[in-house]
């Protein structure tokens, strides 16, 4: 099957600084692909390039067979930024219904998306009165409501309690089982094991593109945190 996302030799500059160095990777369709790496490694920049809002210096990003950011992709790709990007002065329901309208869906779809993220009881509350974790889920509902083929989620589990985090991850897998492609970033390595495929980024370079099992056997450790460190050490021993 064709890759849902193909990134080729992607170079991104921010000001004078190069934040992505000729990154190349693929994202398989209908799977959860984790984008892992420490803060500042370029995860968000890569995600912004995939959804087509990042200025790129060179290289290409192809999403669902089209150049990233094409008009035709905007109803097929959902994007949830790291900071919850919803209207704080609207209720959860008003927020999700607005995004539902943008994707051509009705009020019923909006209510279903709110229930999906576990906010049915808070649907009538203003977003500014919600906790940080609830805001993040409201933001997620605004993307789910469009039923996108590709869902790009930037650190969706930050600040969530462990129970909710597990719930969200099983939701991600349920979406993938139904055919949705997910790209999920995280800076916590214990989430890496929950992904079908792992992209490891560090300082704007791709360290690894593999399954968690491949990564474990390649580095000879069961601990993915340790595996990441091993990869870092190997790349530093052999200067490019």
């Amino acid at each position: 099957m064709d890759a849902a996302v193909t990134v080729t030799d992607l170079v991104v500059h921010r000001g004078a600084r190069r934040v992505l160095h000729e990154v190349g990777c693929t994202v398989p369709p209908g799977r959860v692909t984790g984008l892992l790496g420490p803060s500042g490694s370029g995860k968000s920049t890569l995600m912004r390039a995939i959804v087509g809002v990042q200025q790129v210096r060179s290289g290409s990003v192809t999403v669902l067979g089209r150049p990233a950011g094409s008009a035709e992709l905007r109803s097929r790709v959902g994007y949830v930024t790291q900071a919850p990007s919803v209207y704080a002065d609207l209720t959860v329901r008003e927020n999700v219904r607005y995004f539902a309208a943008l994707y051509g869906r009705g009020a019923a779809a909006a209510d279903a998306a709110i229930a999906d993220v576990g906010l049915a009881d808070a649907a009538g509350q203003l977003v500014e009165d919600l906790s940080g974790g609830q805001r993040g889920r409201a933001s997620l509902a605004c993307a789910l409501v469009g039923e996108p083929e590709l869902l790009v989620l930037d650190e969706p589990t930050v600040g969530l309690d462990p129970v909710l985090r597990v719930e969200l991850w099983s939701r991600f897998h349920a979406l993938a089982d139904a055919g949705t492609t997910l790209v999920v970033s995280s800076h916590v390595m214990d989430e890496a094991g929950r992904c079908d495929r792992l992209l490891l980024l560090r300082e704007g370079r791709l360290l690894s593109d593999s399954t968690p099992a491949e990564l474990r056997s390649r580095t000879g450790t069961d601990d993915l945190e340790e595996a990441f460190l091993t990869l870092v050490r190997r790349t530093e021993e052999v200067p490019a």
Partner: protein
Amino acid sequence: MTTALSPRLTTATAGRVLRQLGHDHRTVAMLLVLPSALLGLLYLVYADVPTPPGQADAFDRIGLTMLGILPFVVMFLVTSIAMLRERTSGTLERLLTTPLSRPDLLLGYGAAFGLAATAQALVTVAVATTGYGLDVAGAVVLVVLIAVVTAVLGVALGLLASAFARSEFQAVQFMPVIVLPQFFLCGLLVPRDQLPDWLQAVSDLLPMTYAVDALQEVGSSTTATGTMWIDIGVVAGAALLALGLAAATLRRRTN
């Protein structure tokens, strides 16, 4: 975002902006009451000033002009802050990844604040003509129309200005930059034919000049004049131009 217009998405966006406004009761109250209150103060300032024979009543002249200037200023400020919030909250970036086009977004804002401006103009004009005895020779409904078109110009310039503001501090300071020169040169303080030639030429290029001229036409003529319609057309055209420029300066890909 595409550039194709969708009335459905424009309406959804206007509805969303109005809902945001609706949750902010104090802002709604201020939008509706503030211009009337300020005009009331102006009415009291001129209450004891004698009108020289053969001249128009000073409050009639200045108050009428204010019916255009006040909504322009208020809508400019409200819109530029609203759009800046859209930018800083990340919702703008998110909208740019949805099927909503840039003109849809800006027209949605224009329609929502245009509606708010209509409510404001109805209240202000009603209070001014009944409460403060503002005399208008022409139809009061034309005063409302001019006030609304001028307010929409304020909305459009506010959307455009917000593209150049990186912070609220900057956005607020665009207000005097955009508003005061237009106010100084519009013919209210000094009749335009008494301005130095070059300043008169500058004032010919400023849309507020035409809004004020249209109001003065309604103030002095019992029937709608052709000059007034041309003035309104110029103000509306300037608003559309500003909206177009705002759409063009809205970048989808940023750094």
